[in-house]
């Protein structure tokens, strides 16, 4: 079972994304900001990342930069409520909130599938 890490400072949002992705057959961990996410990613191996950008303590773009050395090929989906603020990054897909279950699952799945 692939392991997806979902990061957002709104618990209400990580809850929804967890439900979406679990329904699609992934194992899901959640984190409330970049620092928490780094802890999870250091403790366990992750196969994909779904993250917000604006978060307290450590933002999404800083999280991505911090994860790259250990996970150079990690498929990443950024889900942002103000997507324009996220530039284009290699290996990163950007989705705008609100995003429905099908789009999120398709994005995560496609990226994992591309690599497989």
């Amino acid at each position, binding site marked *: 079972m692939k392991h997806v890490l979902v990061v957002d400072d709104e618990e209400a949002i990580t809850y929804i994304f967890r439900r979406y992705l679990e329904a699609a057959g992934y194992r899901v961990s959640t984190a409330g900001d970049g620092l928490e996410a780094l802890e999870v990613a250091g403790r366990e191996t992750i196969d994909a990342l779904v993250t917000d950008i604006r978060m307290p303590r450590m933002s999404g773009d800083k999280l991505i930069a911090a994860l790259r050395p250990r996970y150079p090929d990690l498929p990443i989906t950024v*889900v942002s409520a103000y997507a324009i603020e996220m530039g284009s990054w290699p290996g990163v897909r950007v989705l705008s909130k609100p995003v429905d279950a099908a789009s999120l699952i398709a994005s995560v799945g496609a990226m994992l599938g591309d690599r497989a």
Partner: protein
Amino acid sequence: MVHAAGMVGFDGGRLTAGKTRDERAHTPMDEDAGHGASAGVPAAGGLEGNSYHPLGEPGVRHWQASQISRPGLEERGNIFFAAIEMTRMPMVVTDPSQPDNPVVFVNRAFQDLTLYPEEQILGRNCRFLQGEQTDPNALAEIRSAIREQRAVAIDILNYKADGRPFWNGLFFGPVYDDQGRLLYWFGSMMDITRRRVTEQSYLQAQKMEAIGQLTAGVAHDFNNLLQVVAGNLELARGAVDDRDALLQALDRAQLAGDKASKLTQQLLTFARKQRLEPKRLNLNSLVVEFSEMLVRTLGDQVDLHLDLKPGLPACTLDGTHMEMALLNVLINARDALPAGGKVTIGTSTIMDPERLERHRLSPGAYVTLCVIDEGIGMAPEIVSRATEPFFTTKGPGTGLGLAMVHGFVQQSHGRLEIESEPGKGTTIRMIFPAAGAPAAGQERAARAPAPGDANWSAATLLGVRTVLVVDDSADVRELAEAHLRQLGYRVLAAQSGEEALQLVERYGDVDLLFTDIIMPGGMNGLRLAELLRQRQPGLPVILTTGYMNEIPPMAAPGSGLNVLVKPYRMAELAERVHMALQVDVRARPALDAQHEG
């Protein structure tokens, strides 16, 4: 000719509120420059207004007022006359001893700039340069300078003969004779259109940036909430057979919906479009009644101290929104004290001239509510952005707290001041106008207002001006009354001078008297104006009459007496009233009759 006084503005500098007559009397005259034939009061770095400083630093040597020994415009044979005709700086002289203060001299540059030939200028009041977009506040400032006989420098939008507007960096000051009688006004102008346009595009760019930031913030927060609402609805759809899961999804969607409506309210408060229900309230009572909530908000680490001034005057405020604003400020104070400490909530009054000046407030009585912390403080660049919506330095902050407080205070006709220093702490001060006597009509019988303090009625706070209409003809009176009401004025109407005086006794000061001259009974309109002006010096008066020969000899300019001949059109009345009310409100005498408690 304008004499050496005409050199005003050449060698000065900051063309920005000149000294009043009294102040000038204590300033030594600069007599050397005029070799005894003329003398002036040097600017000495004093302010003359808020205008552009074309010559850099505040003016020191140029004259703000002058005295000449040889009045008259005939002397045109010397170098000073040539200099004035040669300079490219437009100059003008007006004669306030003639009716309506007409122009009696303009130089060539004036004609070049305005495109009016001399014959179309001489004999007219300078207002021919004004037009639709000319700022009434700038005109009010000019009128008050003329009334107070002081120099002023001000940027004002004027119009050329062909209708094109230009920004005029105007400076003018009074010229007296040996005996100190006002002879002329001397003015110099400067076309500063280009600078103004640059400034305005800069402001526009800033505004666009602010709107961009606001839009981004709104989009961000609403998209997040939409995500939660839409996401949970989608989950609910997939969980129709699982009652618990279904209810949980619906609850979560509902919660996000509630948050969204709260966000909308916050935005409305920031935009000063909140529906407020202001009532008379005492801020001391509000703080005391709300203190339990405040203590709870501050937590165990932070002590709350109250420093409430006894006998604080009431304010007219929406209590609920006031509490929210106080709570927002207090949350910031708490967050500025991560290791705990002390927060003080204090109230006080501001009414003495020195403090009014320090806070740049118009004369009146004010109540302040301040929150003081000795926390981490803010750097100046943070202070300057603190009230921007969605600007936050806190991790989980909305960036709307102080933006809302600012919006609420503004909408309540108050002012928000922030003082902060890194490491020293922060003082947030909310200043509100004190409520005066209960508004007429509401608690009319409570007490007769003391002279001067009735202007803090709710109507006045909301910017509504009161016009006293006096005419013995019911038709004429009612027509004027209805029309002025429709224009948004508060109207008191009386059929005789005696009745008018009674109304003023009962309801307090008015902003304008509009009265018929001939009326039955012992008191005519002129006598009424005289009596009311004893009570309210400087009260603008418009007289009206159907008989031309009743018109009194033209009163001295600036006296505020003007006559509207019957029959008049309603539009004419509206315009006269509007013009007459454009006097500078700051020139009103300070309200020192404020009651406390």
